[in-house]
Each structure stands twice: as C-alpha cells, then as structure tokens.
C-alpha cells in the first residue's frame, strides 16, 4: 500500500504502442520480449502456489472452521450477548476514530499540498509514524500516560475517570494506529489535482470554506473514500494496540478481534472462527471496495498522462 501511489504516476512520455502489430505475422514464433512458455508456466505455477498456501487456504479455512459444527451454532456464536457487545464496541470505536482521522487527513493534506513551508518532509514522515511503531508499543504509550502508574494516573483516579482498561483507551489506541491512512491517501490525490480551480474560485470571491466544499472536496472525493475505507478496516481490526489497553473485560472492553482471541484461548474454536468470519467478510468487502474505488482514484489522478495510460491498459 504505502509506496505504490507515487511510483504509478511516474510512467513516462513515450507511448509503448509500436511493437504489437509487427509480431502478429509470425504467431508461432515467440517475441524476443516474451518469456519462454516453460518459464511462464513455472512462474505462474509458483506464484499461484505461494498465494494458494498463504492466502486462499487460510481464507477458506476461516469459513470452514466457522461452519463445521453447523449453521445453528454459527448463528448462536455471533448473536450471544458477549458477541453482540463486542460488535457494538467495534462499531463504536470505528465511529469515533474514523471521523477524527478523516478531519485530520483533510487538514494535514490541505496544509501539506497547498502551502510551502520548512519542515514539510519531516511532517510527512511524522504522519507515517504509526507504521514504524509496533502495535504493542502503540498501546503501551497510552498506559504510560493514563494507566494507574502513568503521568495522569493519580489525577484520573482521584476524579474517577477510567481511560486504560476502558473504552476511551481503546478509542485512543485505535485512533493512533489508524491516523495516517486518510492523510496519506489524500496527499497524492490533492497534489495531483493542483490548485488552479481553487485559485480561480478565490479570485471570483468565494470564501475559503466555499472553495473547499464546492471545489476541493468533489475533486478528491474518491481518494478520500479510499482512505476512509482502509482506515475503517484497520480501526475495526486492530488487535495488538487495543489488546494492551483493553484489560479484556468480557462484555465491556472486548472488541471483535479481542473477543476472537478470548474464545480461542477458551478452546471455543467454532465460536472464535464464527466471529473471525465476520471480520474476514469485512476484510473481503474492503478489498472489493478498494479495487473499485482505487480504479476511480487512479483515473482521476492521471489526467496529464492519460493518453499513454489508457493506451497501455487497452492493449
């Protein structure tokens, strides 16, 4: 995910359309820029085998394990009160963390792509910070701040406010882990969109907010949606960071990924995989949405090289 966007826009000026028809005449002769048939088969075979073992078998086995004791047990597992409370908490956490990070993403990408200032590279790097921090450490920093022995621990205790081992801690840790996603999808899209229309709007007397809502937001909407979808998937699925701050109180501070762990450690495998299958379904929906919206982002992002890009895709 991270490094792709920039690289894709770098496609060159020369159109690669010249070589196709020439080779058509001798259909049985391999083109010099094509791999031999045996190599092609070998590479496809190894790649498919690798993806089969590491992606397809695990994917299939989640649903197989979830349903192996029958549909009745499956539905019982995902509708019992503890499961429902885990689902509710997961939805609540995402409902707070995602909008927060959406606003942050908009502000950060506006500041970074619309203005020149010293330390821009540093700021861009800081946005990637959570990618370099282990999930366990991401949770731990909030324990050090708000835990019983933490900086604000005494004060919070005196005022009967619980953050760690309670819902606020879960929301905080999730927000930390997911804050880069909207920003880093938006930055390249906003950069590529340029500022001409915004400048025209301002010149014609529009206010800053009008310009933002009527010009910028429609221009970046697909990039924004793309970022929100990925951010949401991570917010609902975060395990390590949330695990540190949750305290695993059943029916109270268990999100779905934590509940999966608890059921598994109780040897309640079928129920564990049943809840896991819901998260897997969410992951699959995310992948489909990513693909559909990702195409639109790319399309909107590359107006200047579209002649070359379209030709290549069509070929």
């Amino acid at each position, binding site marked *: 995910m991270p490094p792709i966007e920039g690289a894709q826009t770098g496609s060159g000026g020369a159109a690669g359309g010249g070589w196709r028809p020439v080779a058509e005449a001798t259909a049985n002769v391999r083109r010099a820029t094509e791999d031999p048939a045996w190599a092609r088969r070998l*590479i496809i075979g190894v790649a498919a085998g690798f993806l089969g073992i590491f992606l397809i078998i695990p994917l299939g086995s989640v649903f197989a394990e979830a349903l192996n004791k029958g549909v009745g047990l499956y539905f019982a597992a995902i509708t019992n009160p503890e499961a429902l409370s885990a689902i509710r908490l997961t939805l609540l956490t995402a409902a707070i963390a995602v909008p927060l990070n959406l606003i942050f993403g908009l502000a950060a990408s506006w500041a970074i792509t*619309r203005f020149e200032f010293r330390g821009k590279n540093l700021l861009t790097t800081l946005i990637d910070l959570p990618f370099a921090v282990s999930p366990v450490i991401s949770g731990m920093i909030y324990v050090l701040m708000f835990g019983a022995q933490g900086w604000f621990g005494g004060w919070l205790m005196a005022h009967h406010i619980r953050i760690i081992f309670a819902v606020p801690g879960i929301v905080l840790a999730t927000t930390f882990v997911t804050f880069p996603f909207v920003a880093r999808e938006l930055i390249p899209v906003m950069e590529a969109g340029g500022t001409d229309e915004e400048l025209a709007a301002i010149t014609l007397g529009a206010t800053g907010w009008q310009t933002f809502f009527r010009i910028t937001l429609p221009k970046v909407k697909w990039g924004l949606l793309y970022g929100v979808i990925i951010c949401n998937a991570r917010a609902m699925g975060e395990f390590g960071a949330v695990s540190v701050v949750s305290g695993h109180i059943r029916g109270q501070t268990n999100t779905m990924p934590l509940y999966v762990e608890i059921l598994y450690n109780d040897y309640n495998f079928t129920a564990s995989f049943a809840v896991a299958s819901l998260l897997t379904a969410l992951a699959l929906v995310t992948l489909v949405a990513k693909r559909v919206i990702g195409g639109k982002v790319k399309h909107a992002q590359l107006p200047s090289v579209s002649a070359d890009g379209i030709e290549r895709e069509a070929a």
Partner: protein
Amino acid sequence: MAGMTKTKRRVLPGFGLTMGYTLAYLSLIALIPLSTILLKTAGMGWERFWHVVLSPRVIAAYKLSIGASLIAAAINSIFGFMVAWTLSRYEFPGKGALDALVDLPFALPTSVAGITLTSIYAQNGIIGRLFVPLGIKIAFAPLGIIVALTFIGLPFVVRTVQPVLQDLEAELEEAAATLGASRLQTFRRVIGPAMLPALITGFALAFARALGEYGSVVFISGNMPMHTEVVPLLIMTKLEEFDYQGATAIALVMLVLSFTMLFGINLLQRWSASRYATD
C-alpha cells in the same frame, strides 16, 4: 512554522488553521504519548537500562524477532517478485481476483490471521499434518513464527515491485533483444537492475512490519521464553507483570531500530523514485 515561499500560493486560505490543527493533533495523539517512552527510560538510569536490555531473555527475543523477520522478508522477496511478475506480465483467468487478494493481510485483523494460520499449521491442521511424518513442527515452533510473518509481510514486496514492473518501458527490453540478448540475459542485465531499488524497498517494508508484529505471532508461536518469544510479546508480558520500566526499555530499543528502518526506507524510496522518474 515559517512563511510560505511561493507567493503564487499565498492566495489560498487556511494555512494557519490546517497547520495548527495538524500539529496539535499529531502532538496530542502521537508525539506526547511517544515521548513517555523516552522519559520513562530516562528515569531508570543507564545501569538498569542495560541490565534489562542485555538480559539473556531479551537478547534471545531480539535474535528471534530479527532472524525470523529477515527470513520472512527474504521469502516474500523471492515469491513476491514472482507474484508481481505474474500479475503484471501474464494474462490468465482469475487474475483480477488474485490481484485483489494480495492485500488480504492488510485488511484481515491480525488475531484472525493468527488463529487461522495456527489451525492450518498445527500438527492436525491441513498443512501441518503433512509435515508430521517428516518430523517437522511448524506451529508452536520458530517455523510457525516465520509462517505468520511471511503472511503479514506478503503485500509489501508485491505492491512495491508491481507498479515499477508495469511502468518499465518495453523499449528497454526490445533494445536488449535487438542487440542480441537472450531473455535470461535481458532479465539479468536490464530488468533485474531496474527492479532492485523497488525490491529492496519491499524487503525493508516487509521486514519492518514483521519486526513489530504481535497479533498473528502470539497464537502460532507457543510463546516459550528463550525459544519462541518475539520482542513485542516480551513487551506485552512485561506490561502484564506491571514491569513498566522493563517494557519501556525494550520498547525504546525497538523504536530506535524501527525509526532507523523508516528513515532508511524513505531514503530508498527517494532514490528509487529519482532513478525511475522518466519525465
């Protein structure tokens, strides 16, 4: 927060607001909480710090984490390159679905990945049982950790290499072929060197991700101190024992390692981008 240098852009409003909000949010959510690690460690003194960080159990965890992450990243580099090659060069039925599926490890919660891989690679699992006659134990052994880390690092190499491979100009390969190079020579002398920066970047990203991984590993590793205990798990154990100083000391070493990696990856990406920016 210095002034804007391009006068052209000064027309657009909102610099103070968006910049202020961005910095405030970053500080509150990330920078201040992260600084607790430095301050907590500073409070424990050098002697105690080294005592914690160099204890045999911690060293064993670092060795395991770094070793398993390196192996997993290497596996991903080799097979991920083949996957990227397949997806960008060949046509076959189901390609679109396979391409989309590559991102599954990004989208799947790590606890789900952990329990699933464990059930598959346990001694009664569909893959694990094939290795029982050979006397090879995968789950609850170091091998299981490598499997989990390979899974979660899988998208990185593919998604770094794939776009570069797609953007590689056909003319380069044509020129090589015209000049009499065999396909293998073209691959070794033309395509290979062009792909190297992307491949190294993918390797580094997969390694960095694997180093900090907790969720998928905790289920499959068996978590035996000195044997199958990775660093994030050791930090977790210390936290559960309320040994916050120990946990932060280990975390600090880990952060220094990760930030060095992040910095290196940024340099790599800049190098890679400058080398292949064709316009």
